[in-house]
């Protein structure tokens, strides 16, 4: 084999291992992601199918009967039954906290309520019915009511994901690129206000994400008759809070990286796990009970959950105020931390 090929191969390898940051992001990150996903989807061990039973729809006797059945089924450790009020059960279904709801219809027969468009619900339904004898078959009552379907769960999540991606790539990557081109230090050698510099990113990104969100909403409306239950002002304010959080995070993660390859790694390292863990496509409640309190606090999860509450449940800003404040606080803390360690050189 010729020498220059070896030299070229050597060059690429050196580029790689002499940049320990890249090494970290490219080797450590996939392992971490694989582990996390493995935990989430480990069907045999951990994946619990959550089923809600509506209390009002069954008599005292049948509740006991259901509970017995539930326990006998739960012995297989794949189902978790909870007996709830009808309202609570539907709320959980809407938020993805339960895969399906069992209740009796007006004739007194048990039906399974869920959106057949939701894969997770469908698979839970299949798993459940496969355990029952054929005469016990539970008919499906498909959810058609707006705000309750899988698509209603999905669209706010997609909006939140769009905001995260758009801002982390749009702001974070751009700052790192400016640093690499030495433009950042040139700007810093002028009396340019730092606040204006970062504010300009925030303003532009807000416009972009707003536009992206509108496209999704229009698409959702025409294709699925997805409608916003809450008011637009609340939605807008909460949206801003989410934008603010991710702008701060973008500044923090781009505060030191000196080249775009490292930037790529860092941004992926932040966005990928959040995408997987924050309940965008499926509820994060599938993860082990012990980590759920942490997952609930991921900025993307808070943002998506809040958007769902406004868009699907008609919550107004006062109801999601806690989440909004949390997002603003995350944004502010990241911004200040990022500014403190920011490298203009």
């Amino acid at each position: 084999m010729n020498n220059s090929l070896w030299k070229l191969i050597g060059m690429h390898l050196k580029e790689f291992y002499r940049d320990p940051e890249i090494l970290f992001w490219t080797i450590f990150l996939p392992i971490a992601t694989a582990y996390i996903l493995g935990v989430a989807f480990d069907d045999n061990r951990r994946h619990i199918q959550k089923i809600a039973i509506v209390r009002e729809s069954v008599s005292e006797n049948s509740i006991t009967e259901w509970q017995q059945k539930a326990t006998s089924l739960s012995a297989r450790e794949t189902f978790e039954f909870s007996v709830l009020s009808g309202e609570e059960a539907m709320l959980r279904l809407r938020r993805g906290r339960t895969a399906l709801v069992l209740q009796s219809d007006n004739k007194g027969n048990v039906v399974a309520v869920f959106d057949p468009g939701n894969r997770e619900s469908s698979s839970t339904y299949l798993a459940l019915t496969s355990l029952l004898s054929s005469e016990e078959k539970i008919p499906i009552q498909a959810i058609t009511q707006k705000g309750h379907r899988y698509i209603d769960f999905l669209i706010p999540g997609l909006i939140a994901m769009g905001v995260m991606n758009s801002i982390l790539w749009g702001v974070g990557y751009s700052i790192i690129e400016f640093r690499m081109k030495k433009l950042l230090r040139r700007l810093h050698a002028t009396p340019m206000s730092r606040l204006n510099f970062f504010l300009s990113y925030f303003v532009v990104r807000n416009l972009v994400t707003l536009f992206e969100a509108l496209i999704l909403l229009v698409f959702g409306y025409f294709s699925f008759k997805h409608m916003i239950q809450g008011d637009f002002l609340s939605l807008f304010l909460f949206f801003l809070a989410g934008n603010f959080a991710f702008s701060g995070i973008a500044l923090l993660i781009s505060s030191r990286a000196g080249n775009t390859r490292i930037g790529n790694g860092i941004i992926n390292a932040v966005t990928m796990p959040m995408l997987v863990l924050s309940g965008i496509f499926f509820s994060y409640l599938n993860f082990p009970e012990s980590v759920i309190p942490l997952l609930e606090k991921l900025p993307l999860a808070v943002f998506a959950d809040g958007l769902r509450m406004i868009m699907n449940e008609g919550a107004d800003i006062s109801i999601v105020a806690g989440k909004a404040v949390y997002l603003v606080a995350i944004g502010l803390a990241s911004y200040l931390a990022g500014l403190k360690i920011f490298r203009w050189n």
Partner: protein
Amino acid sequence: MIENRLVSQPVLEIKELHKSFRNLKALNGVDLTVHKGEYVALLGPNGAGKTTLLEIVEGIQKPDKGFIHLFGTTWHENQKELRHKVGLSFQDTRFVDRLTVMETILLFSSFYKVPKKKAVEVLEKVKLTEKANAFVPSLSGGQRQRLALAIALVHSPEILLLDEPTTGLDPHARRDLWHILDQLRKDGLTLILTTHYMEEAEYLCQRIVILYQGKILADGAMDQLLSSHAAEQVIEFQLIDDLAPPESLEKLKGFKELYFEQRTHKWVLKVDSHFSTLKKFLSKVGQDNLRLLETRKMNLDDLFISMTGRHLSE
């Protein structure tokens, strides 16, 4: 001028400046005082510390120790004021690809709150008016340097600090830039530039500072520097059949130095005056053995070689 120097406070005053990167001494005790209206060239080979010195003056890097005052104040005390008084261009900066020349200059002028009229004037000054609507990546090297200069000038600074403004330009583009910088002199501007070209230093600057391994080796006007080193004249020659010159050359009157220059394949003989030595030189070498003979005045590079054994632009 002399009186003025005595009464007026210097624009830049540096004493015993040190800067290290790990165990590498980039600046090793630099003293430099520059007065208003002076054009100073910082010359030195790669790694001499030119950029480091300039960036410390620009407030971009911090010295490890030493005294540095710019307009009687420091970056620490008066960052804002100094930013308005200093115009600069770095050794290499890329601007925003998706902006035109005009948009770029307007962006920078907004940081100094300078009206658009001024930006247009500056473009005129650096002869980029025709390129106002061109995108930055489409500019030639020379045009790009002029854009960098325009940005450095947009707020009418009192001192201009340029790091290798003409490196990589062809001689024509280099001369264009010299003329522009020459024109600025009448505004009372103070200029410090770094360069590898002694012609540039000689053309533009009445004062030349030679930096080598983080120290100032020489500082003064060109004539002063050359005459301070006694040798004034250089005889360059080539011999047929790769002959070595006779050792007796060292006994010539006014002999200073003799060495073989690899780059040009010439022997270089430095003497006090070639008028008095040329005849003796010819008789010692033997006219028939000469393939080539040139005489010239000593230049900065010769001076630098005799001080360090290296060329200025290596």
